[in-house]
């Protein structure tokens, strides 16, 4: 009924979408896993990362491969922004109820959204693909843009890298301990405050990187912050909040369900994903890989 090349194309499309979502959602999940803060402003970091990438590309222009430097600079800037937010503001809310933390990050969404509008206006902005990845190849009759191939490779690399750091390094052990029991870790002499800041920066870095890397395939517009945060939430709900591999799997499932869902329900592309999320919330509220919250 469907040609193989077509199904393969849908599959690859789903993987590309999944890897972008993973970049964003993994940062959200990391921060929640350690700090137990659901950062609504994660999408805003993503958006500002995109705007900064555009800004840096224009500063560095006309260097042809300036995009890479711009993307890295944007991600680092967002990590620094994350550090400021965590140390100067969020820090004071850890002892409060979760509701206050949610309200705080929600307020950040509004503030950052308006700031982006003041700085960059409401014009739609666009960044070109770097020339080294501007081409495309044909595999099994499917055209694959090289930039998409790069994203497909980057997602798993980041997943494996983060897994290695978390599971096999002393730093990772401290982070895991911070996630499990912050008081005991503090009593053992570790500087928990900086572990929190570091994790918030790492998560923000991923958001900024995701925002910067998405610019060659998406337009930069106000409102992209809210769009992405909704999708990232669905991914972490499916995978399990705080679980890194759960987020990876959640993103893969999201991408494939979206890709093939439109074949089954052409009018309701988002419907299949929402049904899946609802089903998971009913059967396994803590997600596929998550732990039940105490």
């Amino acid at each position: 009924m469907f040609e193989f090349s077509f199904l393969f194309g849908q599959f690859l499309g789903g993987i590309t979408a999944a890897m972008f979502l993973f970049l964003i959602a993994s940062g959200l999940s990391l921060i929640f896993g350690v700090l137990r803060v659901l950062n609504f402003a994660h999408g805003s970091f993503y958006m500002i990362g995109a705007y900064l990438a555009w800004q840096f590309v224009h500063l560095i222009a006309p260097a042809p491969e300036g995009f890479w430097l711009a993307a890295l600079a944007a991600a680092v800037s967002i990590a620094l922004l994350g550090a400021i937010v965590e140390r100067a503001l969020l820090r004071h809310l850890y002892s409060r109820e979760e509701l206050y933390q949610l309200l705080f990050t929600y307020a950040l969404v509004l503030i950052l959204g308006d700031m982006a509008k003041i700085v960059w206006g409401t014009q739609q902005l666009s960044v070109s693909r770097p020339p080294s990845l501007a081409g495309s190849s044909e595999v099994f009759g499917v055209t694959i843009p090289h930039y998409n191939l790069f994203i497909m490779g980057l997602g798993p690399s980041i997943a494996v890298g983060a897994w290695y750091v978390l599971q096999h390094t002393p730093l990772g052990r401290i982070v895991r301990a911070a996630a499990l029991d912050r008081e005991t870790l503090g009593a053992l002499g570790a500087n928990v405050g900086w572990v929190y800041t570091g994790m918030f920066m790492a998560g923000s870095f991923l958001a900024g990187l995701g925002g910067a890397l998405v610019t060659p395939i998406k337009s930069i517009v106000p409102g992209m912050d809210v769009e992405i945060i909704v999708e990232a939430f669905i991914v972490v709900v499916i995978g399990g909040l705080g679980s890194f591999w759960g987020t990876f799997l959640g993103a893969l499932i999201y991408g494939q369900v979206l890709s093939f869902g439109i074949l089954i329900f052409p009018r309701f592309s988002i419907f299949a994903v929402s049904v899946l999320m609802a089903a998971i919330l009913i059967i396994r509220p803590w997600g596929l890989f998550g732990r039940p919250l105490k």
Partner: protein
Amino acid sequence: MKRVMLAVIGLAALLVPAHSRAQQPIKVGYPMILSGPGALFGEPALKGAQMYVEEINGKGGVLGRKLELITRDTKGNADEAVRVSRELILKDNVDFLVGTLTSAEGPAVSTIAKENKIVFIAPIPKTDQLTAPANLHPYVFRTASNTTIEGRTAAEIVAKWPVKKIATIAPDYAYGQDVAKAFVEHIKKLKPEVEIVDQQWPKLGEADYTPFINAQMGKKPEAVFSALWGGHFLTFAKQAKPLKYFDSINYNFIAGGEGASIESTRAMGADYPVGIWGNAYDAFNWDGAPPAHKDYIARISAYTKQDPPSSWPVTGYVGMQMLVEAIKKANSVDSEKVAKALLDLTIDTPIGKQTMSGKDHQANRGQVWGKTVIDPKYPFAIMKDILYIDPTPFMN
């Protein structure tokens, strides 16, 4: 002493009531998207209205009174549009409403206009439902184009192409559904041998169009009509181009939803799929335009300090102009009388004569269409041989 002063002021007020009332400005409420993704078009649409108001006030205003534009942000949300429109009427005591952008906001504010018996002119929302017989009331008017006009005009163009297998892609909400339906129905009428091989309905604001693009290419259409607008079209085109989507249909692609507007081509620069067709509300290089157009473009360019200027200010400009001309004709700011004056009113605008149909309160507003080309004078694609199709034959 204070009391004496008050008495004097009170007496003075009594002595000159007629005069001071004549100096009160005519207030026009302008609910428009000024934040979020839609602000991209809401802001220039506001600029056009503001420039018109300044020009009119510079010439002494209307009926000897100045015009005052009171702007509110609808945030692209129908509920918010309703809330600010109510506030404009009840708190700011506006005499009229001009505004709204999306096809969700327009019909929502129309019900408020009906409730309060206040003339409401919609300069941008395109859904047919706004002025459909079931929703029409004496106070709602539209200077925007509508989905019937846009879909049928696109069909007129595509019917001349040597293609039979046609597909559509449109956002899955009122505007996208209505315009795709108008296109499909009209092209089947013009060219019965046409086969609609595929219709894709991504949600409004879809981030990843790849699955839709692949699915559409899988059906092997020869031409495509799109109604993805604004930043949505940009994202779609950026993803479709490297997938060789436009090559696969030989660039037989027509982008409704202002896909060839200068906002889109300027933003995308070299990444724009040059060679496709598209439309816009206005074009700075529209050679066949009425004589007044050239002067308007120079004025709006100076006013917005943008060269070439945006294609959107004309929507707000013509909306305000229609209202002011109706006030002049009615010689009154009473909504009842202005609404009557609007029926079959013809005015001279920068884009030519516009007539407000007395039957369905819809202006004969077409859009400019053209094939995009690269002109070395500009760092972005522009429309060539701009076509303005008179919508009058397609309006009913």
